[in-house]
């Protein structure tokens, strides 16, 4: 069999004079995320690339414009993106205990025509993928969330969300690592620490990891 060429097309957007965003796709999709991680890893090996960070179907690349032009790097990205990504090793699996007593659990259930315990059952069912670690230290965007739980963000974000809050919004779920403002729906809490400032790397999760929640009773 001839080597398979990918049909993934990459769109490259300049991000100022020293960075760009390579967009493999804009959907929440595990295969796209796998490709983004592989592309970031390949780019990070280049001497003219300072940092390449994968997130969802995108790779944000900071480069050294004294070493490579935007056009030359764009051409290199197009070549790299057509490569079949290596067979992905399954990301590390984390099991996260959750007490499902969040202040928005009832409202989420009501808005989706479910009971609170059905919301919990649906939330614990999948093994989620970490699509991106970022935003604040230790935060991970995970998904995809079951369609039955998809809701837009809260109209008014909370000014202070407690650390450890387990939350959902759109097609994703996440855990607030630190006390911070937040607009996601809070359905539970965990005592697992996601941001470990005295470890290196200081985040429990890495992009590509897998996460399984399980319910603890009160």
């Amino acid at each position: 069999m001839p080597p398979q060429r990918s049909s993934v097309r990459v769109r490259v957007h300049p991000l100022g004079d020293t960075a760009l965003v390579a967009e493999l796709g804009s959907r929440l999709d595990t295969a796209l995320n796998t490709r983004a991680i592989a592309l970031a890893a390949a780019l990070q090996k280049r001497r003219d690339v300072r940092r390449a960070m994968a997130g969802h179907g995108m790779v944000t690349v900071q480069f050294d414009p004294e070493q490579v032009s935007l056009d030359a790097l764009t051409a290199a990205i197009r070549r790299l993106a057509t490569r079949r990504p290596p067979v992905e090793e399954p990301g590390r699996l984390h099991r996260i205990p959750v007490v499902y007593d969040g202040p928005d659990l009832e409202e989420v259930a009501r808005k989706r025509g479910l009971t609170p315990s059905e919301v919990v059952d649906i939330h614990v069912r999948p093994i989620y993928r970490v699509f991106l670690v970022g935003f604040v230290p230790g935060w991970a965007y995970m998904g995809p969330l079951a369609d039955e739980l998809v809701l837009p963000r809260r109209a008014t974000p909370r000014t202070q969300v407690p650390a450890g809050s387990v939350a959902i919004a759109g097609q994703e779920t996440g855990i607030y690592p630190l006390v911070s403002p937040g607009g996601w729906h809070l359905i539970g809490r965990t005592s697992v620490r996601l941001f470990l400032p005295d470890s290196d790397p200081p985040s429990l999760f890495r992009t590509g990891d897998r996460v399984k929640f399980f319910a603890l009773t009160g």
Partner: protein
Amino acid sequence: MMPALRVIAPGLLTTVQDAGRPHAIASGVPPGGAMDRFAHAAGNMLVANDRGAASLECTLRGPHLEAERSCLVAITGADLEPRVNGAQAPMWTAVELHAGDVLTFAGRRSGARAYLAVAGGVVADRWLGSMSTNLMVGRGGMHGRALIQGDIIMVGEAASRAAPERALPDDMRPTYGDHALHALAGPHAARLLPESRQSLFAAQFQVSPDSNRMGYRLEGALLEAPGDELLSFGLIAGAVQLPSGGKPILLMADHQTAGGYPVVAVVASASIPIAAQLAPGDELRFVETTVERALEMRASQREALDSLTT
């Protein structure tokens, strides 16, 4: 490592900063580092340090410091009226302090952030490869916090080639009075409604009081960039995000590492030092530029720094 300076009064917000921790973004930790990398690097080079050595970033109202021993320092960036024993001290110039000399800052003439480089480099807590202070998580620099009265600033061994009176020539010093930031259209600029796009590159914006090292919230024209919600992606300093409320946010050194708001513009790398010298209440405008022009500006800054190489 030896004590160099004692903090008599800390100023408004004085922190230890170096070139930051760029690799920490993989864990969601802001890259941090000096806001004005040009002034930071120039200060270090004037006292024969590595460009990325740690120095003090002094915000708006500078500290009062007493020299514990003779040391060579350079003050760059914002002109906060530095004085040694009451007499005006030159900016962008290596100055010898003797034991007992007092360095003070009398006021704000221009800019927002002055850098105090000390020969040998400031030595402080290293976290994730950098001595930069991250105030949000309380790590790096002076125990993860701003300086307080009584702190002792430690420095490393000074290079023997460090010499007083070296200066950055006048014509190479940035002018912080001009608040025009050169910027390129961002990846989502096409979402902007025509009048919003026009405002972005023509209107005056004001840096809101709710601004800090993470980013500047900008008051002024409300901009509209309708479209589907985006999945989050990696961000850089200089990105201008547009949340749904229509008030842009200019991301700075301690920026969030990822976000899902449209990025409508990105400030040219050579203009970020100018942005770093803005304070709440200051006005700014974005001037649309090209990659070619941005790279020219970047090259001339690099030449100015290279002229300081011994």
